[in-house]
């Protein structure tokens, strides 16, 4: 089956920043993304778990979007403007999609 090259961008960010990030992505023309809850993890700030979090301010989410390679830089610039000062992880990886016209 014919597949097409694409980029998969995964951004783990604090829940309070979710709407600001997705707003920036939409402003940059990225209208397709998926938001996933994050159960827990560990990093520079120590271990963290969703269990027992009482404040929305301490939750995390992952925003995943698949885009064409030529749109990657514009998308990362828009995302970075939001996530720069915040806790989070931004990763970019290669992937393949079946229906290129959708991305």
């Amino acid at each position, binding site marked *: 089956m014919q597949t097409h090259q694409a980029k998969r961008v995964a951004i783990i960010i604090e829940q309070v920043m979710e709407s*600001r990030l997705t707003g920036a992505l939409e402003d940059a023309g990225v209208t397709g993304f998926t938001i996933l809850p994050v159960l827990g993890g560990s990093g520079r*700030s120590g*271990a963290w778990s*969703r*269990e*027992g979090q*009482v*404040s929305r*301010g*301490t939750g995390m989410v992952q925003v995943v979007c698949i885009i064409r390679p030529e749109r990657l830089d514009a998308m990362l610039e828009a995302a970075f403007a939001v996530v720069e000062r915040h806790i989070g992880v931004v990763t970019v990886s290669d992937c393949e999609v079946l229906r290129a016209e959708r991305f």
Partner: protein
Amino acid sequence: MQDILSLAATNLLSPIILSFALGVAAALARSDLNIPEAVAKGMSIYLLFAIGFKGGVSVADHGIDGTLALSLVAGIVLSAVLPLIAFALLQVLGNLSRLDAAAVAAHYGSISIVTFVAGTSVLEASGITSEGYMVAVAAAMEAPAILSALWLVSRGGDSRRMDSELMREIMLNGSIVLLVGSFLIGWITGVDGLVKIEAFIVSPFQGVLCLFLLDMGLVAGRGLRGGSGVLRPGVLAFGLVMPLVGASAGLVAGLLLGLSTGGVALFMVLSASASYIAVPAAMRVALPEANPSIYLTLSLGVTFPFNLTIGLPVYVAVASALTGG
């Protein structure tokens, strides 16, 4: 003194405090006891609705006077001023960075609605009535502290502005909307409305509060376990001293306003409590460089348990003694 000790003993051995203690103990012992997130959320919605509704009914039943508006103004002023006092106290005790101190200060100007709910429960158990509109005062005290904290940061040359989106999120956060909304419903429907849903919002209230505080105990215990190394002795002392400073300011405000014994006690509770829901979210947006471990551990792991176990009976006893209630 005897009254304070008696009230403290009664409070400490009440089901709600013992449930909280169970939660803290279970978390510290690393038990797998857990309240599902959706259940905890459901209970908080129930408690906010019930407390708001009953406050509205009380206002409908007793009527309103100019004290309501003055109480709202006093609440807003206290919420704005307490962070300045907290900030100054942290400069002396805490040796924190300006950003961390301002973020902590914001929490102590704002309020903990769970402490307020527990306070009303203690008053009810003691047969002490309070002004129903204190619910509205609680809602009014959520946000001004955040503006004060941002002002404190900007004074240090680090200009942070409150964007309109953040302001909207703070003013319309779910807790405030539910509390004010249910207060208005209670006010509009009055005692007749209460009679219709009494079996749902009055009788089960204490039992739900027990389970909710069990969950809060688990959260506080986990916070203490994880954040025990974060707090230096001075900062830890701040978490115990600042509630008493806030309560004193609330006491003065309540007495000047001429509130009832219950009203004065609730003003003390509101001023003594520290936010751990609305303000942490706002701080993560506005001051992301501030260390959340410090302000969350302080407000949730130190000040909340202190207020719940020791603070509440003391505030009620002092208010009773000074108002002759």
